[in-house]
């Protein structure tokens, strides 16, 4: 079966102003990412803040221009698709934004917000009151919320309004940027169960960006780990979680705070500061922070190595042969 979304070597470049950065000229916030998402499946993207996750998601949703590479949706090239044509696709590919309050227009009531997609798509003749009730119920908010304004609801409630709005038009691909950040665990569970149910019912594919590794472990089929605009590891979630190969993945999994004040945590400390994409490290771009780096890591660029159900980019990947991690 061919993938619903097939991303190949995508680069998203931003121009940077003169001044101290005059030498840079431009930065690649996303620097050659390839991944594909099957219909009805969930793909998780995790990575350092500023690693380009939102930028990648926005490129797929047509909100950023991809400078290089290709973004195939059902075989159709989305890169450089004229806005007029992209508009029709906005029913099928929807994006839920990271910032819950900021992305809701403060002047619109909740009802107007969640039914706005019908108006934008010019779908007349709908009973908007009924639609608003249906959508609110779907995300677990009482009907009287329809009359409220964004400043009258809490952060978590705003997130649910965002979900209702995103699902208004029964999309095929939902891109969710941190959909549960700021939600308590019970509502997070409800939200994720809701997405799972809708996924089963509607065959919805989900690309989810989240910092919450526990969420990724439970709900995604595949996961991609980003660092400095590139994937450093990607593959089947179970494989990546049970046998991570790239040192950044190891550090990330080890950092996951446990809900137990006495947990004995095996942390892998990353050295130094996250590097800037204005000044990418040579060789393996993770070498400035990698606890396992060796001489050649600072000069030789590691290639993308496919190993069974997962792939990674490291000269000295962790091996899990005897059920224990032994880097190099």
């Amino acid at each position, binding site marked *: 079966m061919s993938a619903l979304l097939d991303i190949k070597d995508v680069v998203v470049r931003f121009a940077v102003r003169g*001044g*101290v950065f005059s030498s840079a000229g431009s930065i690649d916030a996303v620097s050659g990412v390839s991944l594909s998402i099957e219909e009805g499946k969930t793909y998780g993207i*995790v*990575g*350092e*803040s*500023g690693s380009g996750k*939102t930028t990648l998601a926005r490129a797929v949703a047509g909100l950023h221009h991809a400078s290089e590479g290709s973004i195939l949706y059902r075989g159709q090239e989305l890169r450089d698709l004229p806005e007029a044509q992209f508009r029709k696709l906005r029913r099928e590919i929807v994006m839920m934004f*990271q*910032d819950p309050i*900021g992305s809701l227009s403060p002047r619109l009531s909740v009802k107007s917000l969640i039914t706005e997609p019908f108006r934008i798509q010019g779908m007349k003749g709908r009973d908007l009151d009924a639609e608003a009730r249906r959508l609110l119920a779907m995300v*677990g908010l*009482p009907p*009287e919320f329809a009359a409220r304004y964004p*400043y*009258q*609801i*809490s*952060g*978590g*409630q705003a*997130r649910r309004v965002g979900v209702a709005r995103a699902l208004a038009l029964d999309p095929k691909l939902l891109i969710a940027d*941190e959909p549960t*950040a*700021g*939600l*308590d*665990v*019970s*509502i*997070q*569970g409800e939200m*994720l*169960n809701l997405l*799972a149910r809708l996924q089963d019912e509607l065959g919805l594919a989900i690309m989810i960006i989240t*910092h*919450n590794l*526990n*969420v990724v*472990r*439970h*709900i995604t089929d595949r996961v991609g780990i980003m660092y400095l605009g590139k994937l450093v590891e990607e593959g089947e979630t*179970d494989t990546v979680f049970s046998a991570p190969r790239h040192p950044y993945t190891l550090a*990330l*999994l080890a*950092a*996951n*705070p*446990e*809900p*137990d*004040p*006495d*947990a004995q945590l095996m942390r892998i400390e*990353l050295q130094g*500061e*996250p*590097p*800037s994409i204005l*000044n990418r490290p040579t060789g393996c771009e993770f070498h400035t922070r990698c606890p396992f780096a060796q001489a050649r890591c600072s000069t030789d660029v590691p290639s993308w190595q496919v190993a069974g159900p997962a792939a990674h980019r490291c000269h000295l990947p962790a091996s899990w042969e005897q059920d224990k991690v032994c880097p190099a």
Partner: protein
Amino acid sequence: MTVLDIQGLSVSYGTPRGELRALRDVSLSVPERKIVGIVGESGCGKSTLISAIIRLMAPNARVRSGTVRFNGEDLLALPEARMRGLRGTEISMVFQDPMQTHNPVLTVGRQMIDIQYRDKRSKADKLKRAAEMLALVGIPDASARLNQYPFEFSGGMRQRIAIAMALMARPSLLIADEPTTALDATLEVQIIKRLRELQDEIGCSILFISHHLGVIAELCDEVVVMYAGEVVEAGSVRDVFHNPAHPYTRALLECDPGHIKEKTRNLPTIPGNIPDLVSLPGGCIFADRCPQRHDACTEHPVLSEASAGHRAACHLIKAGAPA
């Protein structure tokens, strides 16, 4: 010494449907040099509590009763000018949404100089301090990036900048409303570690709001659990996480996917909804959703001691039932 001492605080919002009682009889305290966490469902009143402490409330909000003492001074009774003087110096804030903290049209460097307006140092010194502070929270190329505008940073970077700004004034109380939600796990633990170090160095107390139980467990000394506008449990992190006394706290801990070892697509939740705060039910506020509800629960339970320094508002405690 108690830095922040809140007693019997009740706050309401005026709404077209009537009075929405967002906080009811909330008492909690933050001891000197301690980190106190607040957890609770979205809409339980955490942000309302913070806005009442720093007196930046929505126009339709009203304090019905209670006191908020900061180093002995009742904040609710202070003249506005004095309150303004405390905010950002003695009491600093980091918000859930870092964009709220930043002025979009000023460079980060400019903003960081502006918040040092009380200092007599030279502009160059202030810029140097700003760069040091940014480096401390892990912003690479700190001095170069001072020339950039907030939108040029990622969400997580903006959050770290907000933390840097909040700590620049060496406050005695830092209030942080979900400051790590935008960060990846490695940075989250790094920020937690830095917060702890900075807290120790500056000698401040922290009131830390988070939904991430793992973060609370790791960072905080004490934790306050809120539900629908009330404090339902409070105690040391160890007591509350290892021996939760309130059924709501137990449910919350059980819902944490971090606790669930087997992979599942069907995560546990707490069935039911938070009650309507405009028409409150009588009796225990959690009764609707409580698996252990019994006859006594039609009476509103008061906070009582489950063990030394560990309190919960549930009739099961008084009845001596095993928690």
